[in-house]
Structures are given as C-alpha cells and as structure tokens.
C-alpha cells in the first residue's frame, strides 16, 4: 500500500497525503478544521486536534482517504521540512491576503517543494481571509499569474465564512486522482519488466481476493 494508493479498478481506495504549509497566522488551522468538521469553534475535534486530520471521501464512485498534515510555519522547524512532505500527493500553501509577507513565504515553499518532489505533487495556492478584502495587500492578478507560472492552482477562501474550502479540497482530490491514474497507466505499460523483478517472497500480490481496504491510516 504505497503512499500513492493508486489503483485502476474501482474497488480500490485511494490514500493521499496532503501537506498544509503557511505562516503562523494565515489561518491554515481554521481552514482545515472547517473542512474536516465543518465546525469553526468546536472543541476536541480529534486526538491530535488540528495537526493531523483525516477525511474520507467518495468522488465519482471512488473512495478516497485524505490524510492532512499540518506543518509548523516557524522557520526554526524547517530543518526537517523535507521529511514532512516526502511522499506527499498534494500541498496546500496558504497565505493571508492582508499580509504580503505570507505570500512571499508561499513562494519560497513552492520552490522547495518543486525541488524536492518535482512535478508529481499537486500544488494549491490559497489566499485566505477574503472576508477581510478591504485590507487586501496581495492583488488577485499577481497571485493568480504567479500560481499559473509555477503550475499551481489558485483559490480564494474564507475559513470564517466557510467559503471556497469545499471546492478547494474537492478540486485537489480530483487532480490527485488523475495524477495517480496516469502514474498507474505508466506503470501498467512497464508491468512486464517490473513483474519479473518483483521479489519472490511477495506472493501475496498474486492473490486475487486480496483487496486491501486501505485500513492503514487510522482516523485521528
């Protein structure tokens, strides 16, 4: 059950890892809480609260398990950044539309992610707090043109008003599924070569009844 969790047949479950990046006060915690529980101020959301969240989805008849990893925005915890986003299928980079600095940080992360993970990862750049549009310091045009230039999609959200969040995650999931399927097709073409190199002891792969339910990630 690799991180990609891809599988052409509809019986399979996709497991995706999504990392959440953004400076301390951009509201990424509120954003992800809003998505997973749809409750803005609820207490005792999960055992790990907003740091690690899981969500089960059903998209066009296919089951998707999302594991959302929050990362620390502080610079001093970035020495081991790469171990956070390795094997990620998607990344959500959040900035505050009233805070120019937070947008600059997003640009840094994009560079690092592309360097570490190449084009495999689906990037979402998210301008949060659109309820504070009157204090906007990052222009819509700038953010959107930048996002396009780095192959990312741009979204506008408001965690407070619960705007744009559902769309953001649904869109990201669909993109990750497409990427996983494309990868699967690519693997399928090269299957004849890889089959022989597969380790002999792993006969479990040959069992038709073995359809893993993807029960590896316990919901937090």
């Amino acid at each position, binding site marked *: *059950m690799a991180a990609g969790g891809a599988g052409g047949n509809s019986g399979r479950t996709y497991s995706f890892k999504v990392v959440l990046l953004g400076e301390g006060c951009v509201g990424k*915690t509120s954003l992800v*809480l809003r998505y997973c529980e749809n409750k803005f101020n609820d207490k005792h959301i999960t055992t790990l609260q907003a740091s690690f969240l899981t969500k089960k989805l059903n998209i066009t008849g296919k089951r998707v398990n999302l594991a959302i990893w929050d990362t620390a925005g502080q610079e001093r915890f970035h020495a081991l950044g790469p171990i956070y986003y390795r094997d990620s299928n998607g990344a959500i980079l959040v900035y505050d539309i009233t805070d120019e600095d937070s947008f600059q940080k997003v640009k840094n992360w994009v560079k690092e992610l592309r360097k570490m993970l190449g084009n495999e990862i689906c990037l979402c750049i998210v301008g949060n707090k659109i309820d504070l549009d009157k204090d906007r310091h990052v222009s819509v045009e700038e953010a959107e043109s930048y996002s396009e230039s780095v192959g990312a999609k741009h979204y506008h959200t408001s965690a407070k008003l619960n705007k744009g969040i559902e769309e953001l995650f649904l869109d990201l999931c669909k993109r990750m599924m497409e990427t996983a399927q494309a990868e699967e097709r690519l693997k399928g073409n090269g299957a004849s070569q890889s089959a022989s190199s597969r380790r002999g002891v792993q006969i479990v792969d040959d*069992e038709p009844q073995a359809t893993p339910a993807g029960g590896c990630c316990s919901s937090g």
Partner: protein
Amino acid sequence: MAAVEVGRMLRLAEQCLERAKSFIEKNAGPNEASASVSASSSGSPAQTAKPHQTAISPVAIAENTGDKSTSPKKTGHHKVLTDDGSGGLSPFLPPEVFKRLQTVASQDTIKKELTPIEQASRLNQKLKANYEARLARLTPGQAYQKTSLKLSLQRQMMENLIIAKARQDALQRKMEERRLRLQEEANRRFAASGTMTPEEQEQHMLYTNVLEYEQDHDWPKIWKANIKENPDDVTLVPRLVSYLKLTDSVSSGGGSQSFSSGLLLSPSLFDDLHTKYDYEDREESHTQEMLDQENSFEDLEEFLTQLDSASPHGCTDEAGSDSDIWDPSVLNEGNIQELEMRALKEHLKAIVKDIHIAIDQLLSLCLLSFECLNTASSKDLCLASIEEVFFMPLWTALVALFRKVNREREQAFEISMKLYQDASPADVGVPLKLFPPEPDRMQDSYPYESAVQELKLLFKDYCPQRKLECVVRTLRVICACAEDYRCLHEENSAPKTAAIGADDLLPILSFVALRCQLPQLVSECAALEEFIHEGYLIGEEGYCLTSMQSALAYVESLHTGQHPADMFI
C-alpha cells in the same frame, strides 16, 4: 503310536519354523525380525525334543520356579487352547507374566501412531507372552499340548505379519497417491508463472510440504476454521503467531511436551517437526535468523569494543583527551573516526536491510501456510505479532548500534538539554496561552509533565510498533494538556482559536523532549524511522514520528543559538 504322532508334529513344526524365519528375514525390518526370531527360538526343534525344558527363556524359568505350587492345580482350567490374546488373561496369571504383559501394553500407549508392521509385532509379542504363560502352567507330561500350542502360536504370528505387510503396502500406496495429489495442488497454485525463479521453486516446495503436514496434523486446520469463524477477533492472529513460536521452542528445546493451550505434543508430532521440511524450515528460519542477527550483533559489539580500546579516543570524549593532545597520532584521529563512522553506517545499513528481509520472509511463510490471513487487516496483525517476537531480543543491541552512529546528534541534544534544563515553555517558543502562568496552580510539578512521563515509557518497550504507539500517545497527551491549559486562560473570554495545530504542537513537543532528559531518544527515533511500516507512514503514526524527529532536530540545534526561539511568530 504316540511317538509317531510326536514325530509328525515335530516335522510340521520344523517346516513352519523355516517358513516363518525366511518370511521374517525377507520382509520385516531388523527390529521386528529379531523380536520374532527370538519369539520363535523358544520353540526351536532342539528344545521341543526335550519337552521338559520347552520354555528356557529367563521369564519362563522364573515362572517355573515361582509357579510350582499353583500351576498343577490350575492346569485343568486350561485344557481348551484359546488362541486369541485376550483369552489368556486369566485372573491367575503369574505376576511376572502379568508384569510383562503390562509393559507391552504401556509401550503401546506411549506410542500413538504405529505402522501396521509395528502393530503386528506388538501383537505377536503379546501372543508369545500368553503362550509362555500357558506353557508354564502345563505339567511336564503334557508334551502334545505344548507342541500344539506352539504351532498355533507360530501360525498366528505368521498370519499377523502377512496381514500387516499387506496393510503397510496399501498405506504406502495411499501416501504416495496423496503426495502426488498435493504436488498437483501446489502446481496449480503456482501455475500462473511460467518460469519459476529459485525463490518461487522454494516456495512451491514449501507449499507442498505445508499441505502434506496439514494432512497429518489437525491444529493448522483448527486455527484456520477458528479464524474463518471469527474474522473480527483481533486477538486470534497474535495468538496464532505465538502458538507457532511455542511450537518452535518446543521443537528446538524438545523439553516440555505440553502446550499452555492444552494441546499435547505427541512424540510423533515432535518427530514430524524434524523430518518434515515445511514447519521445521519455518521455525528454523525463525530461530536461525534470530540467531544470525544476534551473532552479527555480538560480532559487532566485539568489533566496537576493540575499536574503542584501539583508537586513542574511542567513544569517550570526557576522559583521556588531555593526554592525547600532544600525541602525534592525534593528527590522524579525525581520519580514523571518519573511517570508523563510515564503516559503522555501512554496517547499520546492512543490518537494517537484513532485518527487513528476514521479517518479509517470516511474513510470507506465515501467509503461505495460512492463506486465510491474506487480508489487509490480518496481514497487519500478523506482521505486528512477528515483529514483536522478532525485535524483543534484538532491540537493545540494535539501539546500541544506532547510538554509535548518532553519537554527535546525541551529544548536541545533551548540551541543549543541560542548557535548557530549567527553561520555561516560553523559552522554546510555546505561546503563553498554552501553559499555565503560575506553576503552582496545577497538579504537575511542571507543564506537560504527563506527556513527559508518557514519552519516557518509550524506553520500556522493545518492539518498534509499540514504541510508535507510545509516540502517538505522547502527542495526544500534549494536545489534551494544551487544551486544558488554554481553557485556564480563556475562562472568562469566549474561545477564539480553534485547536492546536503544528505551529503550537512542535514547540511544545520540543519542550517535552527537553524535559525527558534522555539523549538516546534521538537514536530510538532514528531506529523507529527505519522500521515503521510503509502503511503507517502517511497516517497518524507517521505524522507523530515526523513531528518528534522535527522537534528533536530543533532541540539539537538549540545550543548553537542559530535559532532563537522566535516567540513572536
């Protein structure tokens, strides 16, 4: 007239004996042959010529001497010659004979599964004992009866052996047929792949042997049925694995024969474990690999101690360095240490790889024998149980190696730990709202003490999976504590922020790691990183371990002052 009769009987007896002897020599194994020959020798022609000493076996002599008073009275009851063994067990059997019969009977109960030939030989021994008993009761004058008794004994022994031989042959044919059938079954299962790699061939053979073993033994079937009936019983799989391990310990130790589960390990099962390739191989690979690992670790330990004493600095930086500073060899020291470290890292990599391969093999053997375990959840359980057994004796040595490799990181951790031993959570960047303003207002002596206590439990386990669970629990305790502390602050105001995210979690985790005051945490986590299951990597376990690693890296860098606790983020 009587003499003529006796002569005829003698000739007949001789013929019978000849036939019996040639038959026995031709067909029976050495044990049976000698037993039967000795049985018939008591009635050899030389002895029958002297009727007075017919039974010269020691037992018979003993009977004669001890039996003198009773035998004349009893002979009258035994005029009718009964050939079946049970008929001979009269209530007046002499004690010696009775004893002998009993030992034969008790031998039978010890060995459960006898081959037909063995059974026949047992039966014949009984017959012979009966015959001797009866003979002993005859008065010297009853020579005719003696001969007739002897002949009927020989005839019966002969018949028994012939029947046994036929049964044995039939059984062998059946076994052979079964073997072929199982072979075909295994062929079918492995039919998908046209050309077989050596591994597949080995598996194929193993599978055939597993099938064969299961024909003879019920316990795998019982377990399988049990698992099928109770698919939701999560305790079954661990119990099965520990049962397999128990079988292993019994088969290798050979000591106790009873299982805690109440099953009796009969000697035949014990033998089978050694003759049959499949289970033996499984158990053996199990123990063998464990032994191999242990040996390699022992070698390693030895190697390390040699290195330590050979190189001037070894691993202790506290002592001995002063005198060495003026030593010319110091010039090379950096070089030596670098080489040593490189060798260590290579060694560690090889060992980690070996462990992964060994566990993979154990798991696939388990799944090969118990196909019903081949579901995602059962497989996880199976793997967890195997690992628990596997790592128990290894972990201490394994961590010793990781500590050697991560020595510098641990040292950095220790320096930070000492510098910050009295630090408040705010010193490592924990927001003020997430720890109590006055320490005396809480039950713990310092903030997040319960999380620190939880983290310390990590060192009490010897299985990576359990350690990982401990890390997860530590993070959960942190979240619960943080929630409580925040509530203290927001007693009167409406709660503003929602929940603890990574921005808050990592500083707290760093604080907890500092307060834990155990630098080997660095090595433990590095080892966990190597042995965490792929499936857990993106889940809660993976997240918690990654967070822990991140916090540890931050703590290691604390003493360098590179990252002032930027509290205002």
